[in-house]
């Protein structure tokens, strides 16, 4: 059986295990809250995680990776970027997928073809992890940018008076 079909068959199990594994990186109190509440407005964080991992799963199994999926990936990393976790923890969630897939497929008969496909799939996961790292850093930078922008906005009049940026309306 082709790898992608195999994975699609196990999609529900894999996603559930992956979701649970991600929650494990939170404090146990927090994890269970995220697990239980399904209303997207009452529990936006868990919604973000779900959408993100579904997107990544589609991406690596060769299904259509929509713009919405890439947005959800971005959202997930935004969330990671403002949590009290180290950078490695922040992107570690992608690698969980590797381990879960290996574990789920351990009872399958491995043909050489399947094995090769699995390797390329793992490379794809690695690539996704790198992409996530980029996004994480981007959003960390964004936080610092927000801080400096906020100071500029708060001192808007001061900056204008001293003829610094932003310039007066007349000159624009």
């Amino acid at each position: 059986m082709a790898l992608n079909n195999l994975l699609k068959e196990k999609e529900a199990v894999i996603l559930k295990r992956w979701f649970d594994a991600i929650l494990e990186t939170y404090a146990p109190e927090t994890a269970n809250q995220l697990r239980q509440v399904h209303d997207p407005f009452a529990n936006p964080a868990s919604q973000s995680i779900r959408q993100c991992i579904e997107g990544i799963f589609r991406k690596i199994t060769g299904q259509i990776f929509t713009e919405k999926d890439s947005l959800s990936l971005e959202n997930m990393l935004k969330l990671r970027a403002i949590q009290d976790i180290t950078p490695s923890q922040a992107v570690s969630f992608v690698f969980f997928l590797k381990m879960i897939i290996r574990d789920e497929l351990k009872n399958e008969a491995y043909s050489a073809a399947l094995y090769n496909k699995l390797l390329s799939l793992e490379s794809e996961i690695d690539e996704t992890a790198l992409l996530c790292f980029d996004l994480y850093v981007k959003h960390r930078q964004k936080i610092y940018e927000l801080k400096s922008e906020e100071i500029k906005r708060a001192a808007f009049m001061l900056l204008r008076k001293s003829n610094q940026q932003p310039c007066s309306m007349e000159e624009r």
Partner: protein
Amino acid sequence: MPPKLPKPEELANVNYKPPKKWWQKGTAEIKEGFWCFGSRPKYLQAVDMPNPREWKPTDEDWKLPDNWREIFLEGMAERLQKYRSFHLFMDICVRCGACADKCHFYLGTGDPKNMPVLRAELLRSVYRKYFTPSGKLLGKIAGARELTPDVLKEIWTYAFQCTECRRCSVFCPYGIDTAEITIIARELLNLLGLNTDWIMGPVANSYRTGNHLGLEPHTIKSNIDFMLDDIETVTGIKVEPSFNRKGAEILFVTPSGDLFGEPGIYTCMGYLMLFHELGLDYTWSTMAAEGGNFGFFTSNDMAKKLAYKIYSEAKRLKVKWILGGECGHMWRVWNQYFDTWHGPADFLEAPVSPITGTRFENAKGSKLVHIAEFTSDLIRHKKLSLDPTRNDHLQVTFHDSCNTARGMGIFEEPRYIINNTCNHFYEMPENTIREKTFCCGSGSGLNAGENMEQRMRGGFPRANAVQYVKERHGVNMLANICAIDRATLKPLMDYWVPGVNVAGVHELLGNALIMKGEKERVIDLRGEPLPGKEGA
């Protein structure tokens, strides 16, 4: 902290172990990005607050006075006798959990101590230990805790992780208001000199200069002069407001954020244009140039001290009534505290709109009228010429500010103004507006820079709802009637929902307002081209 990465075998078998109960351990981790700097001593000294010293929340030793426990507990006893709300709310919570998922900080962090019930329990556990027979007798079994330095730190951490937004109180079957508990907790912490720098600085400024930013009178005037120049550039009309003028009919007071920061100044330009167009007989006061009150985030006494200038200036300038600008907590204070503190306002007259003749019955005691009430009355009486197409490039949604929503109930007035000044208005989902509105995540003095991550987490539910209308209706403008919102929703949007801008309702009005004798407008108040005028 070393990274905690689960091993494959752990992943294969996720085991949920219930964590220890909060009342069994009880220490607070003060996490990076969660906390605001401790207040510098000079600010405390400037307003005679106790225990000024250099300290940092992450320090092991907070340099508490030797008798800190007595101070705290005596303070608690005093407030139990002064506030029925506090006394009652310490006793009657049944921990039903209805409030748990109503708090934006809880939703954004998932930290159970951010559930309103638990935030209150942190203080309640101390109350039980020292003020109830069962707590004294049974200790931990009754949920009672000693007041240790760790417990104090925990109370501090979570008292400054609550924006006093009152959303939980809407859903509580007994009306328990966590804001009341946070307010008292902060008062008690202030007895020990444990305020944040971001709150204490504005308090000290406001005491000396009348406003949070520390703008001196001539600076206030020159800032407004700048705005007048901009108004002239946009409309060709020279607006000439007056300052500290005696005998004007109306004193206008707005938060100082509208005088200095962006995008607040555009809202302020909206006020200036509106009053000019009406030919309103009003004046600014350079001393009462701050409707906001960071004293409210410090202690009852401090809030009262900082509020004093409003009536005293109204009296000195012999105005008839007071008109207040767009602000959140200013209106909570003006609606629920002000007259009690400094009334009766018998030196003023019951407010009547000089343009429409409408009597503002709901403000006849305190003589404080909200500008959204004033303006919507004007529009209703067709006293303004408006061209909503100037806002046609905006897909607008409206954020109800916590304080004006749950401490006042001003819902229809700003919506009426928006609907008359904009052609495209979309509401966010029903559970996230009006009395159920989500906080910006930065209210009650938490809008510092050092806790940006915390603010982004706290504002997540709000941003999530904006994202929803952005996806469905292409919303690109988040209107509001609060100065803190104008300052803090901008970074929140930039982070979570890029492409959504933030504006006060009177900025939208200023753009739509057709003024007598104005030139053809090609730019809006921000200097950006109006729709259809891009080439002009």
